[in-house]
């Protein structure tokens, strides 16, 4: 039995993540991300007007991919397209819940593609990020 999702097991309209995984936004995770991306944005180093530490908008790349990893494809898959709408940044201390749905499955030039919509809300249901990701599926053994 493989330890990844088979392309043939997915259908358009499927809820890809069930149950919806959670992601805790910690100062450690944010600091590590900022350091790894060499991001010196000043607003990320201070608290906002309400005493909250703001996470980089593109931390979405971490919590969305973290969620999708729970149903990962075979090794070698790559990112083809990405859309994000940042409704607001996440704050340190929040717990994020990301849902995803398979929108389209198609093949082009011998490569298999998966298009998924994602939606991330915090623990109180506030919308943080929505997006669409297109991945080229890795070759299955």
């Amino acid at each position, binding site marked *: 039995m493989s330890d990844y999702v088979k392309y043939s097991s997915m259908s358009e309209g499927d809820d890809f993540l069930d149950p919806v995984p959670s992601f805790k936004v910690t100062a450690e995770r944010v600091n*590590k991300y900022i350091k790894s991306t060499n991001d010196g944005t000043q607003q990320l180093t201070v608290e906002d007007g309400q005493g909250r530490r703001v996470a980089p*908008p593109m931390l979405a790349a971490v919590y969305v991919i*973290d969620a999708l990893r729970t149903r990962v494809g075979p090794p070698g898959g790559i990112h083809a397209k990405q859309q994000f709408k940042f409704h607001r940044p996440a704050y340190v201390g929040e717990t994020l819940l990301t849902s995803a749905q398979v929108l389209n499955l198609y093949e082009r030039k011998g490569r298999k593609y998966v298009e998924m919509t994602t939606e991330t809300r915090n623990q109180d249901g506030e919308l943080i990020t929505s997006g669409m990701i297109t991945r080229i599926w890795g070759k299955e053994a």
Partner: protein
Amino acid sequence: MTELQSYEGYSVGDQLDEITQSVDQTMINAYADASGDINPLHIDPEFAKTTFFGRTIAHGLLTLAFVSRVLSAWNWQGWAYGGELNVSFLGPVYPGDSVRVSGEIDQIEKRGDGIYARCQLACFCDERTVVKGFVICKISP
């Protein structure tokens, strides 16, 4: 929607301040660690040799982190609170590449809830375009 040529210091044709970021395997490994995306295509040279690319490549979302740095410096409020990003990954970033991120405002429009600017974005490694797309951010209060 009404199209404008300029608004409060923003004009169609304005170039965003570019950045150039060098990428090496150490940075890719650090991003893999920070993001949890440990696809062997990014971090395992032996596995990567067996793929179409023949060697490791950076995560596409690492390149988007550089895009985010440019957009944060340009218009933090509009980017982090409501920014919409739409990009395609056109080519790989290899260890040893330098990624140049550029952007230009190509549209300013008045919507019901404010003024928005659209910027065309591109990331280059030398003459190769590796990411292309656009972002829409609010530029009015």
